């Protein structure tokens, strides 16, 4: 049956309760709200360090995905919003550490403002249940 939907909430994932589910699962896909560099208590981490903030955002995405029995490496698409587009090279080593040879679609863009004060980064992900996509040779 198609269109089966489940809203997912993870306590203190993004520090912005009430604006949307942390994620919405529908069929084989999980659409996540964008996550910022917040710890489990909703506090900003690593002020001024974009690589560490990206690391935290990826961990938050993983926390949300694990509630749906998926992993970060099941991400099909990541959109990274940076307060300073010149930071784009600084997140590359962290990205490689998390994803290795898995290569989700990965868009990076610079923005004028983010919701979390002091955040240099927000990351939005869409994940896909393994096996629901076929490798095209």
């Amino acid at each position, binding site marked *: 049956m*198609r*269109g089966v*939907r489940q*809203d997912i909430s993870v306590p203190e994932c993004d520090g912005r309760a*009430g*604006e*949307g*589910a*942390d*994620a*919405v699962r*529908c*069929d084989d*896909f999980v*659409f*996540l*709200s*964008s996550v910022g560099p917040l710890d489990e208590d909703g506090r900003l981490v690593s002020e001024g360090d974009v690589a560490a903030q990206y690391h935290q955002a990826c961990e938050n995405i993983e926390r949300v995905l694990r509630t749906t029995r998926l992993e970060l490496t099941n991400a099909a698409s990541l*959109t990274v*919003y940076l307060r300073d587009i010149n930071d784009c090279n600084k997140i590359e080593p962290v990205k490689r550490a998390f994803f290795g040879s898995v290569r989700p679609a990965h868009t990076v863009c610079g*923005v*004028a*403002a*983010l*919701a979390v004060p002091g955040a240099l980064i*927000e990351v*939005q992900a*869409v994940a896909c249940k393994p096996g629901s996509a076929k490798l095209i040779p």
Partner: protein
Amino acid sequence: MDAPLFHMIAAAPEPVAPYSHAVEVDGWLFLTGQIPAEAGADEAPLAAGIEAQTRRVLDNLNIVLVGLRAGLEHVVSARVFLTDFERDYQAMNRVYAEYFPADRLPARTCVGVTHLARGCLVEIDLIARRA
């Protein structure tokens, strides 16, 4: 996978660039971002203020969804773009929350941007899934 369907909705505002109002694949609906233009009055000045503009944007998105036999309750993911984030974020949220059932809020991303089409304050795009 069915062939994608490229939809233009007669009741929605005229596109301001080369795009479809929505593209549909297998019941998934990918909606182009709407700005606060008014259908049938595309040259008219935009409504003033973030509240009125957010309402117009969500009304426009609803027009597109209804034209596709869907509604805001089918939205799974939304992206909101604001040109004056600090000033408009809370007011946009208040209006936004009125449009969605409290137990069916879409996953959401909201960022500040430097410019939007026609100098508007807010643009929102959606992904929906027809039940």
